[in-house]
């Protein structure tokens, strides 16, 4: 979940999506500005942080980049529990990954945090010659489910920062911004049963 200081926000962000869709690559591009043709497959999940500044506030993302293989999905609740934002990633050159992304969207919609900022990312946009999912399809699905949508490429960096910054901008709106520093945001509706315990140390 996101906790605030005066103008410092810590936000748990989770990435979900099919194996090989490019979750780790997107995170690595965003956090370290790197891209590898062969990115290690993720087991369980990887944790990274990155801080960005938007409208004279800073947002520190605590990013959980999860594993995509089907059987790992049973672990997902542990990673999205209490998240402030989620990026659901698919690979535009792979139809199955789009189907998988839709399932993730549905699972997240049902997990109960009404303020979860959700983004749908159609990754590998550089592979236009192999495209299987049209931009309009992704966009339409996102609109229908009130997610915001971007086509990205971890390889060329296209829209990667934009994606994370857009999430950062949407976050403060999702939470009342005028909380005194150090206070815990328990007044917002949330399905996270641990919300009350949440401590703030921004």
């Amino acid at each position, binding site marked *: 979940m996101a906790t605030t200081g005066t103008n410092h926000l810590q936000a748990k962000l989770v990435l979900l999506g099919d*194996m090989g869709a490019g979750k780790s690559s997107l995170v690595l591009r965003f956090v370290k500005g790197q891209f590898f043709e062969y990115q290690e*497959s993720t087991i369980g999940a990887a*944790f990274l942080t990155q801080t960005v500044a938007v409208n004279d506030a800073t947002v*520190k993302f605590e990013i959980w980049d999860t594993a995509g293989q089907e059987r790992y999905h049973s672990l997902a609740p542990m990673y999205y529990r209490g998240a402030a934002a989620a990026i659901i990633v698919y690979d535009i050159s792979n139809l199955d990954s789009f189907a998988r992304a839709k399932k993730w969207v549905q*699972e997240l919609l049902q997990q109960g945090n009404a303020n979860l900022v959700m983004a749908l990312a159609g990754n590998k946009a550089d592979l236009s010659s192999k495209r299987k999912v049209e931009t309009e399809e992704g966009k339409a699905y996102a609109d229908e489910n009130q997610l915001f949508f971007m086509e990205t490429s971890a390889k060329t960096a296209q829209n990667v920062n934009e994606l994370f910054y857009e999430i950062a901008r949407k976050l403060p709106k999702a939470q009342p911004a005028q909380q005194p520093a150090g206070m815990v945001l328990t007044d917002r509706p949330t*399905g996270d049963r641990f919300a009350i315990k*949440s*401590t703030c*140390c921004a």
Partner: protein
Amino acid sequence: MALDESSKLGWVLRHGTGKGYGWFRKGAKTKLRDLYSFSLEVSEEDAAVLNDLKERVKETARVWRAIEESKGACWYSQPEISSLSDSSLVSSLSVATLANAMHLKKLIRKGIPPSFRPRVWMAVSGTVTQRSTVPDSYYSDLTEAVKDKVTAATRQIDHDLARTFPTHPWLNSPEGHRTLRQILVAYSFRDSRVGYCQGMNYVAALLLLVLKSEEDAFWMLAALLERVLYSDIYSENLYGCHIEQRVFKDLLMKKFPRLAAHLDLIQFDVSLITTEWFLCLFAKSLPTETTMRVWDVLFSEGVKVLFRVALAIFKMKEAELLSTKHVGEAISIVQDTTNRAYDPDILLKVAFEDLGAMTMYIISEHRKKQQPAVVAELEERLQRVNSPRSNRPTQVLL
């Protein structure tokens, strides 16, 4: 398969600066290759630890060679040390055999020299025995029979070959890919219920680097999945993995109640990071030689070693962790600890000397206790995911 023999000796030292392993730390970095040809970029301090380790490994090799000379080759073959905890078996052993086994157990805790690992691992894990029950051609028959088959598992394996330690020179060669593929594909047919689970690729890759034999690596992988690790750790829903995670949390609470309570307070569910440890047997988290040292004891003493090592990592940073106020801070501390655990002896000392008793019996009891909760948890998610979609809720009850 022929692994480059000289590579394991390469400690190519080169100075440089920049980001790399432990990139969050500033200062001069040294580039080097570890004992298994993985390239690292480490601080001067860590480079010194690694160099010292290299000397100690040489010394251990001298000790093992001396013992071999006096006791004869394969003195470590009998009996399986893990059976030492089985008192009925122990009483049936002669004093001499028993003494031998105790000696071996102690030696293994101090580390098996890399050159001895293939033979010793195969012997103490019981792999040699297991293999003797099937025809010699078992593995070649299996690989031949499944050669051109395409399944969901083979597709996922193909997808992961180039993504398994991609920076390693041999693993990233066509021969490396081909060898790793054969092992994983063969295993996916040997146990089609497990098929292929991501994580097995890292384990198989390190087995290959150590054993330098495709067939031996296959059998060690089989030994791990079928006898050493808890069953179903890699199977559908990772049922066994869920159980082990809960058992680990139980043990953490029992051994370090104050720490467990604090981590709970800052909402640090330790499985967020320990899941990877149990699925890759630390292959992705600890430095290579440290991982190998954990595996030495894992094969000789059994799965409780994983719990000991995992607990030791938390124990080593107990004070620091107790002063954390936020989950991100705590995670960074733990990750920094595992990434930089270049000295295996420090970690193993804590694991075996500072944690008190922990028997297989206790672990089994905790597993039994956790089964209903895991079944319920998995069931609950399935129902939620499969239930007809609800519209995005506007108000949710706390």
